[in-house]
């Protein structure tokens, strides 16, 4: 039983790594008031770029770098459209997802080797981000699962506390929150609203690209059409579930990563499912829907429980009232 739980936790962490990167990114973006629904497309482009770069150069780290750059480019398009051109953020995000998924699936059939008809599907990497076990620690039951993970996950152990600290304990974090809560006041206080929104939208995209890279370089080291399989939408849900708090992002990814892994491991163990697997599949969305509704309703009586950025999804220009 202990062994089963440890294995389940390990699978959860492996799956949750990709989600956590993207969720942290989207939290920072949304905190400044920009809703980026282009996550799915950006993550898929990240996964494709990482895999194609690593496959063609043999370097995993170049793959990571490529994913970060492409994430920055895609979110910069969203930032340009929704900040400079004041376009509707929902439509812009959806368009980015449509464009990104299309382009990734297209390039996946163009960047492969000639012998495989330029197709990347079915190709393997020479290496991947393997799990590195920390001697001694990884033998501890259950908790040991945290000490036998890939480099990409170890990095998160530093990034998550830092992301929390940066948001709530530094003046930069304060600037992010004021821009997302009350852009007009923030602007009056001398903050450059547009610049801050650009910066964190692009950083958010870099994290989404990294999230995609985690899939294609570590979790399932390969390329497949639509390999993100809706993870970009789960990310939008996770941001709400974490109530826009980077520190809580990891809880959500563990719960939702756990639900998915449980589904797989129970199936693999040959259990006859009491709950149909599709119910587990949509439960993250249902839970998020309920969380959001209940928190909002409860929040009407008691403030501060719930912290959706007030200016989320709205454009801002100094010259307007």
């Amino acid at each position, binding site marked *: 039983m202990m062994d089963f739980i440890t294995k389940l936790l390990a699978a959860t962490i492996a799956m949750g790594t990709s989600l956590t990167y993207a969720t942290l990114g989207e939290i920072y973006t949304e905190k400044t008031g920009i809703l980026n629904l282009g996550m799915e497309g950006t993550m898929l482009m990240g996964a494709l770029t990482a895999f194609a770069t690593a496959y063609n150069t043999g370097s995993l780290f170049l793959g990571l770098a490529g994913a970060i750059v492409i994430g920055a480019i895609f979110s910069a398009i969203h930032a340009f459209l929704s900040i400079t*051109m004041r376009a509707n953020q929902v439509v812009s995000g959806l368009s980015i997802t449509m464009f*990104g998924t*299309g382009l990734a699936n297209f390039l996946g059939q163009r960047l492969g080797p000639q012998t495989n008809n330029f197709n990347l599907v079915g190709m393997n990497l020479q290496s991947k981000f393997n799990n590195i076990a920390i001697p001694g620690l990884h033998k501890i039951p259950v908790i040991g699962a945290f000490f036998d993970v890939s480099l990409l996950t170890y990095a998160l152990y530093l990034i998550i506390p830092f992301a929390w600290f940066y948001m709530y304990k530094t003046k930069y974090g304060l600037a992010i929150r004021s821009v997302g809560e009350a852009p007009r006041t923030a602007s009056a206080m001398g903050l450059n609203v547009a610049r801050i929104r650009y910066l964190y939208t692009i950083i958010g995209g870099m994290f989404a690209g990294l999230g995609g890279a985690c899939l294609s370089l570590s979790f399932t080291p390969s390329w497949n059409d639509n390999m993100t399989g809706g993870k970009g939408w789960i990310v939008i849900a996770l941001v709400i579930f974490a109530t826009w708090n980077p520190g809580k992002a990891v809880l959500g990814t563990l719960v939702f990563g756990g639900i998915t892994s449980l589904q797989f491991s129970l199936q693999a163990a040959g259990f006859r499912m009491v709950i149909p697997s599709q119910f587990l599949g949509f439960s993250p969305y249902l839970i998020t829907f309920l969380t959001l509704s209940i928190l*909002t309703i409860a929040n009407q009586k008691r403030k501060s429980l719930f912290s959706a950025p007030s200016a989320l999804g709205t454009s801002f220009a100094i010259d307007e009232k």
Partner: protein
Amino acid sequence: MMRFIIEKRTTKSKYSVFIVPLVSFAISLLLGAIVLAASKANPFAAYKAMFEGSFGNIRRIQYTLREAMPLLMCGLAVGIAFKLKFWNIGAEGQYVSGAIGFTWVVQFWTFLPPVLLLPVGLLMGIIAGGLWAGVPGTLKAQWGVDETLTTLMLNYVAIGYAEYLYIDHWKAPFGNMGTPKFPDAAILPSVWGRVHAGVFFALALVVILWFILYKTRWGFELNMIGKNPKAARYQGVSIKKNIIMAMLFSGAIAGLAGAIHTSAVAQKLTTGVNGNYGFTGIIIAWMGGLNPFGSIIVAIVMAALSTGAGQLQIALKLPEAMGAVLQGLVLLPLLAGSLFNEYHLRVIKKGAE
């Protein structure tokens, strides 16, 4: 030295309404040509193949029109909620709910005389879609729960539930997935080759929505709430009631679209029931400027981009995903251009100020 500033227009421009989409579309074609050329395809040959793929002969025109119908209906559905600045991005889920409701009636209500299967089934699609939208609508109106996020989440609940039904609970005894084929009486007849009778519903809805939005008191109220909620409240317009009404109406149309498409095209509930029509509908409502008649053209263009992509694969051996790339490329410049409907660019020479 020159400086550009973006200024709000003081008067509405007569020309920008036409010029902006045309210039944006030209930029899209240019960007598309770059992508095509980069993948070693002749852009002219590619565009020609796409045009032939979507409008080249009668069958292809019919196919494009058939694809345009659910897009148009979802666009109309989303558009009516958008009038209130209400972001219903749940048309996809409402569409799937409609398909589920329809399937439930035509497969299991065996006590109905065959003549009634189709009308009752479509009605159930309308009800299911309406309810699926009514929940987030009520949550928003009553407690201010963010509708963009709730409608988005409910999409995946509906899609997951539909999957459970066609893979497991309602699966036909034979085959991998999907319910048994619907009885003949439950299938919308064809009126022109692949174009089915759903076209009458779609066109009727365009006229009805245009009439409601521009000629009735309700439409006037919706417009007022969207443009100036405060003024609407002073006029005694109930915002809560209107949000719920508009959402029920919006979901009902999306649900009807799902019921119609499932009846006439798939003819059973199976994989592919979530064909992204609801998501594309959001874009169509926005591109059509929330005008029902404008949505017709936009829906046909978007349908043509995806049906034409099939021909790209056949004629030029290009991956079919190119269609989605081109759809995205049509949207992005248009989004950027939308700024110029309300703002204009002023060039200031340094020193001239």
